[in-house]
C-alpha cells in the first residue's frame, strides 16, 4: 500500500528503497550527461534506491508513455514530460498528484509561469525541470549596418527594421517567419488571444485575434520584409539562414543558441542579440516551454519517485544542469547562483522569460498546434485565404480538446 508513500518519503527518506525508472527525453548527446551525473549523485545519497535511467527519443515519447501508462505495464516511475503534454497526462489519470509530497518541497521558489503548466483541476502533477520561451533573436552586426539601434518591440517595428535591413544590406532577409503554429503564438498573444479560451471553454482558432495574428505574420513573410518556409525543413532552414548571417531576425528559444553559435556569423558570440518577442496591441510575450518532472500514478515505488523528483529539482541540481546545458532553470533562486548567473544564455533569456505566457492547462490543447500547422502552412504558402484556413482548422479541431466546443 502506497497511501503513506508521501509521508514515508518525507519523514524517513533514508529508509525508502526501490527502483525508480526515469524516462529522460533530453538530448542524448548534449544534455543527458548532466542528468546522468545527477542520477549518480542521487544513488549515492540514497543507496537503497536504484535508478534506471532511460533516454527516450523526445519524438514519440508521449505516445510511448501513454501506451505504457494505460496498460499498467512498462511505464516509468518518473517521466520527463513536455509542458504541453502534462495536462493531458494528468487528465487521463496517468500522473500522481504531488501535492503534499516531498517532490513539491520548496514549491514557492518555482517561477510561476512554468509551474502553472503542472496544474490541472486544482492539483499539481509535476514540477518544472527546465523552461524556455520564444524570443526575438537578431544579428547585431546587421542591425548596426542598417543603422538600427534597438531591437524592435512591436510587429510594426519589426516590419520597419526588416525593410531597412533588406534595403541597406542587399541579399539579406529581414525576418524569417517559421510557418509553424507554435511560432505563431507570440503574434497571437500580442493580439490578446490564444488557441483556446479556458473561460468560455471554446477553441478559438477562428477568433479575430488569431486572424490578425496570422495576417501580421503573413505580412512579415512578404518580399522586402522577410520570408517564410512551408516545407518540412522550415526550422533547419531558418536556423541555417540565421547562422550564416543571411537572416537578420527570427523567433527562437534558448535551445537554439548553442547551435547558432557554431554559425559563421556568430564567431563572436556577442553578435547574437536576444530580446523579448515583439508585441501587438494587447501585449508581449512568448509561450512558455520546457519540461516537467512527473510521477506515474501506477508507480510501485512512489516514495522513491518523490525523493527522486525532489532531488533532481533541488536548487543545486538545477544549477548544475543550467550550467552544463545552458538551459533555463525553473527556480528563481537558481538564477542567482554562481555558474548560472554568469551563463550568457541564461541571462540573455531571463528577460524574455519574465514576460512568457503560460499555456492553457486544458488536455489536448497542447496538440492544437500540430493540428493547426498545416492550415497555417497553407495560408503562409498562399494556397488558402486567411479566414478560410482558420475556419477549416476550427472545424477540424472539433473534439480535440475534451469539454471544449469548436
Amino acid at each position, binding site marked *: 500500500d502506497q497511501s503513506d508513500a508521501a509521508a514515508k518519503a518525507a519523514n524517513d527518506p533514508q529508509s525508502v528503497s526501490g527502483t525508480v525508472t526515469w524516462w529522460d527525453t533530453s538530448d542524448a*548527446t548534449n*544534455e543527458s550527461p548532466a542528468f546522468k551525473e545527477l542520477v549518480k549523485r542521487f544513488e549515492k545519497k540514497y543507496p537503497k534506491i536504484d535508478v534506471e535511467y532511460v533516454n527516450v527519443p523526445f519524438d*514519440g515519447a508521449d*505516445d510511448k508513455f501513454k501506451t505504457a501508462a494505460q496498460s499498467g505495464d512498462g511505464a516509468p516511475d518518473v517521466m520527463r514530460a513536455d509542458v504541453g503534454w502534462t495536462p493531458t497526462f494528468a487528465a487521463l489519470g496517468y500522473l500522481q498528484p504531488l501535492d503534499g509530497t516531498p517532490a513539491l518541497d520548496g514549491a514557492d521558489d518555482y517561477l510561476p509561469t512554468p509551474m502553472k503548466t503542472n496544474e490541472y483541476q486544482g492539483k499539481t502533477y509535476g514540477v518544472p525541470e527546465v523552461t524556455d520561451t520564444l524570443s526575438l533573436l537578431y544579428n547585431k552586426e546587421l542591425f548596426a549596418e542598417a543603422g538600427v539601434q534597438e531591437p524592435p518591440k512591436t510587429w510594426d517595428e519589426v516590419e520597419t527594421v526588416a525593410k531597412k535591413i533588406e534595403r541597406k544590406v542587399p541579399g539579406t532577409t529581414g525576418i524569417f517567419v517559421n510557418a509553424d503554429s507554435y511560432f505563431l503564438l507570440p503574434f497571437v498573444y500580442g493580439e490578446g488571444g490564444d488557441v483556446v479560451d479556458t473561460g468560455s471553454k471554446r477553441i478559438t482558432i477562428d477568433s479575430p485575434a488569431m486572424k490578425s495574428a496570422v495576417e501580421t505574420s503573413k505580412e512579415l513573410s512578404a518580399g522586402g520584409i522577410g520570408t517564410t518556409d512551408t516545407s518540412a525543413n522550415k526550422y533547419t532552414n531558418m536556423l541555417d539562414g540565421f547562422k550564416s548571417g543571411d537572416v537578420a531576425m527570427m523567433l527562437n528559444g534558448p535551445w537554439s543558441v548553442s547551435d547558432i553559435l557554431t554559425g559563421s556569423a556568430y564567431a563572436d558570440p556577442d553578435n547574437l542579440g536576444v530580446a523579448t518577442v515583439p508585441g501587438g496591441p494587447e501585449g508581449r510575450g512568448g509561450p512558455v516551454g520546457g519540461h516537467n518532472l512527473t510521477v506515474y500514478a501506477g508507480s510501485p515505488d512512489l516514495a522513491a519517485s518523490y525523493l527522486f523528483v525532489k532531488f533532481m529539482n533541488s536548487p543545486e541540481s538545477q544549477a548544475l544542469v543550467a550550467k552544463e546545458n545552458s538551459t533555463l532553470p525553473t527556480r528563481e533562486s537558481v538564477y542567482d547562483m554562481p555558474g548560472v548567473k554568469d551563463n550568457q544564455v541564461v541571462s540573455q533569456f531571463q528577460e524574455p522569460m519574465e514576460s512568457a505566457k503560460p499555456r492553457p492547462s486544458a488536455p489536448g490543447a497542447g496538440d492544437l498546434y500540430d493540428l493547426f500547422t498545416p492550415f497555417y502552412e497553407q495560408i503562409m504558402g498562399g494556397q488558402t485565404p486567411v479566414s478560410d484556413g482558420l475556419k477549416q482548422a476550427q472545424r477540424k479541431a472539433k473534439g480535440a480538446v475534451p469539454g471544449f466546443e469548436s
Partner: protein
Amino acid sequence: MSTRSRKASAGLHITLVFASVIAVFPVAWVALTSLKTDRATWTRPEKLGTLGVSNYTQVLGETRFLTWFGNSLVVAAGTTVLGVLIAASAGYAASRMRFPGKRPLMWTFLVTQMFPAAVLIVPLYNVMSDLGLLDSYGGLILAQCTIAVPYCAWMLKGYFDTIPVSIDEAGRIDGLSPLGTFWRLIVPLARPGISVTVFYSFITAWGEVAFASVFMQSEGHYTLPIGMATFVSDFKAEWGLLTAGSVLVMLPAAAVFFLVQRHLVAGLTAGGVKS
C-alpha cells in the same frame, strides 16, 4: 544464339549505370555528410569543410551504438529465421495442399496488412503485456513477424507454385513426409524466393521503428533506429552521429544481401520434369 550486339550491350550498361547512380547518390550523400566534421557544412552541398572519421569514433565510442547494433542484429536475425520458417511452412501448405481454412488464411494475411499499424498498436501492446513479452527480444521478434510473415507467406506461396508438383510427388514416393518434402526438395529449389524473403524480413526488422520504439523500454534493449533517434532531439539533429550511424547501419544490410544474392540463381528446376 547470337551474341548481344555492341550497341545493345552499351545501352544496357548505360541504363544500369544511370540507375545505379540514382540509387547510390543519396546514400553517398549521407556517407559524405558523415565524414564532414564541420557542423556548418552539413547543409551546404558546395562546402566540404574538413573531412574525418570523428563522427564514427564518436558514434562507436561515446554512444551505446554497439549495444543497439547487437540488439538489432538479434531481433532482425530472429525475425528472419522465425518469420521465414513459419511463413515458408504456411506458404508450402497453401501452395500444395487443399485444406479447409486456406482461403481465409491467405485473406487474413492480406487484411492484417491493410489495417494501419497505428490502430493496432495499443491493443497489441496490451496483448504483449499480458503475455509478458514487453521489453524482450522474443516479444519484439514476434511483433516484427506479424509484419514480415504475411508478406513472406504470400510470396513464398507464389514461388512454390512455380516448382513442378511432380517433384514433390517423387519425394513422397521416395519416402518423404510432407514436411520432409518441404525441407529437402522445395526449400532448396525455392532458393531464389527464400532469398528474397530472407532479405525482406531482415531489412524490415532492421529498420522497423513503430513496434521497436513502443515495446522496448530499457535503453539496453533499444534497436538501432530507436537508439539513433536519440541523436535527434526536438530542435536539433546530430547529423554527424546520425549519418555516421546510418552508414554503419547499412553495412550489415548490405552484407546480408551480399550473402543471399548468390542464391538468386536461375534454372534451379530445369531438367526435373518434362511438360
